[in-house]
């Protein structure tokens, strides 16, 4: 039954998530800012740009996808300072939504008796497919 306890519980969980988010977002933004100011971001971006162009992302997108393997909050933090377009944000988020925190979740899946590595492989393939398909069907840049 819904009681006052339900609301208290929900608020508590929400505040917990905000704190958890801050723990990931602030360091991620900080790291990206350091990379940006030191000129390293440009070099990584230039190196990755030809590969990332297949899925419609700029070279910096590779870093966002990498941060997403720590946690989706990390990816959100890394995405903020980059100034991506609406299409790029949608593609980036779709990929991360499918394939995030893969190490942690492989452990969870393994623990419940299914094959975690198979699961991780399928998710990776689904993420690549998402990038390729969405890049083709979403209009705009």
């Amino acid at each position, binding site marked *: 039954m819904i009681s006052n306890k339900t609301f208290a519980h929900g608020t508590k969980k929400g505040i917990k998530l*905000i704190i958890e988010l801050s723990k990931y977002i602030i360091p991620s933004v900080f790291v990206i800012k350091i990379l940006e100011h030191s000129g390293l971001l440009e070099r990584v971006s230039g190196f990755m740009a030809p590969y990332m162009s297949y899925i419609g992302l700029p070279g910096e997108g590779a870093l966002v996808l990498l941060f997403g393997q720590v946690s989706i909050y990390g990816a959100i933090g890394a*995405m903020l300072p980059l100034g991506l377009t*609406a299409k790029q*944000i949608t593609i980036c988020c779709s990929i991360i939504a499918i394939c995030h925190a893969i190490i942690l*979740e492989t452990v969870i899946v393994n623990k419940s008796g299914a094959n975690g590595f198979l*699961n991780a492989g*399928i998710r990776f393939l689904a993420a690549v497919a998402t990038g390729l*398909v969405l890049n083709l069907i979403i209009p705009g840049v």
Partner: protein
Amino acid sequence: MDWMKIFAETLETSWNTIFKMIYIVIPLFILIECLKDSGWFEKISSKTKKITKLFGLPGESALGITIGLLVGLTFGSGVVMQIKEDVNINRVQLNILFTFIGICHAIIEETILFTTVGANGAILLLNRIIMALAFTVIYMVIHTYFRQKAVKKTNAAM
């Protein structure tokens, strides 16, 4: 490098987002708790029975799929582990279940978080559900193909 500038920019960018999320995340979690306590998950799991039937899973696993889909992978796998004690569910069925849940989980929370940073929620959600269904079916097809091959091989050997 100008460290003061880096600190200032970091705080500005993070604060803007975190502040926006406070307004979204707390009501969302209250809503999820309300749904949980009002028994809505049990009700909706009769709808997800269609998915379990399509994938050849036992009907009891519908609750696991529902919780995984709406709340998160950790909770979902907890429910599946409980279900495993009551119902006979083999490794292949578990793989099918987790292929679906692995691609498509915590859809309420993650969709809303990504929409706050500017993603198109409809595309995000639709793509995720389609990918989950598609890759689960692909896994099933490939698995049956190889099993039939193995059965033929043993038959030929006999």
